[in-house]
């Protein structure tokens, strides 16, 4: 077993603690939709598909996929609790291919699993709070703030990942962030905007809207794959 620096444990504890506290806070909010198994299952399937076909970026040694867009759509369609449950289940079920071997729940180091789940939950709940703030300040605007927040999911995810690389491996923060962000933001940003449309269409069109999500996810993945190949 790899021995990690104490800073890594501290950072992970901070992330997991914050995610747990924020989730409890969200669960206690009266306005949030309650857990719905159908919604959780549906979004988990889409997220698992998206993350399982994620692209392994050799230069940065990380996986990249438009999964943030799926979680944002899940959040818009089912609220923070359902999206949180979907994030949790997704990372238990994914099977990714890393060069010549497969990675799954049983051969992935637990710290990666915990990091992924907790940091995505935190981002989602921070965005939820920001949206709440916007709504209280500008009640007439419903969609514009949601659209403006959409790209932040991927940006924040890159930022937290870069911090983690800094803590665990000592890699310079700016370089790690650039490696994760620059090649892929042109794909993940529009995918997040697409998630807004799907999130709004879901209550009305149900499973049909999920089918619509498949096209942007598929194209995002092939674009990312081409991008990763070019950068190699």
């Amino acid at each position, binding site marked *: 077993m790899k021995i990690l620096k104490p800073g890594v444990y501290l950072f992970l504890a901070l992330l997991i603690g914050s995610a747990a506290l924020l989730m409890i806070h969200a669960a206690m909010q009266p306005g949030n939709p309650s857990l719905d198994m159908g919604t959780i299952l549906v979004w988990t399937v889409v997220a698992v598909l998206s993350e399982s076909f994620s692209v392994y970026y050799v230069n940065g040694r990380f996986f990249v996929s438009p999964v943030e867009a799926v979680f944002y759509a899940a959040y818009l369609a089912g609220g923070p609790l359902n999206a949180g449950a979907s994030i949790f289940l997704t990372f238990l079920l994914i099977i990714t291919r890393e060069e010549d071997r497969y990675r799954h729940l049983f051969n992935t180091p637990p710290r990666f699993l915990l990091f992924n789940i907790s940091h995505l939950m935190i981002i989602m709940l921070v965005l939820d709070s920001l949206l709440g703030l916007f709504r209280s300040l500008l009640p007439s605007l*419903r969609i*514009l703030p949601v659209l403006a927040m959409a790209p932040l999911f991927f940006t924040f995810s890159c930022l937290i990942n870069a911090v983690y690389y800094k803590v665990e491996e000592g890699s310079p923060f700016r370089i790690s962030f650039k490696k994760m962000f620059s090649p892929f933001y042109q794909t993940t940003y*529009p995918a997040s*905007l*697409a998630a807004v*449309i799907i999130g709004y269409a879901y209550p009305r*069109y149900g499973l049909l809207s999920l089918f619509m999500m498949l*096209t942007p996810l598929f194209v995002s993945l092939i674009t990312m794959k*081409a991008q990763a190949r070019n950068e190699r």
Partner: protein
Amino acid sequence: MILLLILYTSLPALLITLYAGLEGPGFYAGLALFLIQGTGEFLLIRSRNRERLVSGGILLFVALSAYALYTGLRLQEFYLPLFIHLYPGPVLTMAYVVIYKISRPRDFEKLSPGFSRIIILLFSYAVLLFMLALRQMGEAGFPGPGKDMFYSLYGALNFLPPIYFLNLLRNNSQKRVFLDKGRIWLRNEEITPLFSRTELALLDRAFAGDGRIRCSDAADSLNREEPGSPFLCRPGECKASLCLAYSAIYRHIKSLDRKMENLGLGMLMPPENKRDITIEGWLFIRDKEMRIMKKKVFPLRIPAVSLPGTGDKGAPAGSGKRFDEYVFSLSIALAGSSALLSEGFALAGKPLSLPSLITLTLAAAALLLLPLEKPKKKKLMVLPVLIVLLPFLLLGSAGEEQALTLSLKSLVLFIACFLSRFPYFEEHSDPESLRERAPNALFWLIWFYMIIISLFTEPAPLRNYPFLGNPGLSHVTQFSDHLLLFLLFFLSARFFSLSRKPLKMTGDAIEFNGRTLPLGQGKTDREILRGFILRRDEPYHCYEILNIVEPGKESCAKEHCKPSSCPSYQKIYKRIRTIRKYLQTTGIGTIVSPERKAASHREGWRLILFDDVYITDPD
């Protein structure tokens, strides 16, 4: 195939004719439309001249639209389903066929991602429409209202033929090889003349079976080519160094190898131990992107190089082409801005009167097209940003959703104008890098537009057509939305098909793609290049070039000289090499030497143009 295509694309008119019954105005209107369209399309497909084809296509589209509008105002029952449900697929199919006919399959894999994304979009649009129709049917209760449901389902399935033709267009830009009875096609262009008969036979061997070419295969084909001096080959019993035929075979193999590498098809690898060459032979290692096809794809094409006698003499470098393109862009800008303005003001609760609508439409169209006239002036690009931001002025009165939708529509309209003007300012910009970077951006734009107009606009039949009085305005904007989406599909495919570039001589200057070539090498090189262009496919011999390099020198023995003993040959050869490099880097073409360099004085050099370049008649 052509008849089937014409029948399919004219089918909506025929369906409506049958639906209207055997009597009444609808029947005659449909029949007339069917005949006009069928004849027009037949003439278009038979046309071998690119410019005539494009102009004819635009003319037919305008004529049909005018006819439909006239008939539609009188016979709404006839017009409405025709243009909303039945026509988009066939018209798109015909548009893609025209693009397929005139596109140049050069530059290869770069264009392929663009076409793939449009195919994905079209396919998902067809499935989306189909699922929406099923959902609508489910809500209405099965079997549902028959006529509307039939239109919806037919409308969805109608997008499959354009997908097929777009797929052909994509295949065109991929390395697909088809070999049949001693003839070979690459990217749907016949390249048989590039190879000798022996090389073609070897190529056949390389593509078939285990991909190995053995001496015995080569000897067989050499024997067929030169029956007087048969080479006897006993595999396993001979030695290459003692074989009379081996040097001839080796020469053919090397030549074939060079050609295949140049074409990007692959390479011929000798065995590691060269003594095994007679047993193992050369292994053909195919390029990973090359695919061998079992049958030739759709053969409807205009020849790649402007051949004498085909009537395809290239674009008249004058105002005609630009006029067509300008009218096309102007119609998009006018129609789009008119629909957007009407929608915007109606949403704000202030419907426009006809004179105000016309004035504002003209102003908006000018705003849309102005920045595209001189794309280098970046300051003018502020205008499209303003066009996109303007709808936010309606935030208060029309609401957030409507302002956002209008803003997206404005952006789509601007992109449609940009794509329609693209061939005009292609010569000012770097079209290849733009085509390479564009697929992703275009995909997202079309996807957003496609989803928003399909999901968030209530489906409604087009009633109360006189839209200037405004009762049926939403239906008109719905119609314009679908028209704009259709145009985006068409214009994107056109954008990813390469246009052709003219090479022209005007006085002393040589113009390529509208620009005078800055030939830095001086007068002599320019004269030699002029000679090549004037000869087109004919060879240019060294004694002819010598007259330019060393005028007045009579020392060339024409037929009976040897390049190795000629004092001027090196000078000529260096000039040719410089010009060849220049032609290749500017994207015009290349100069090919004879296979045996010793015969260059007899066989001469030839100018081979890249397949998107054509020579216009010299002044």
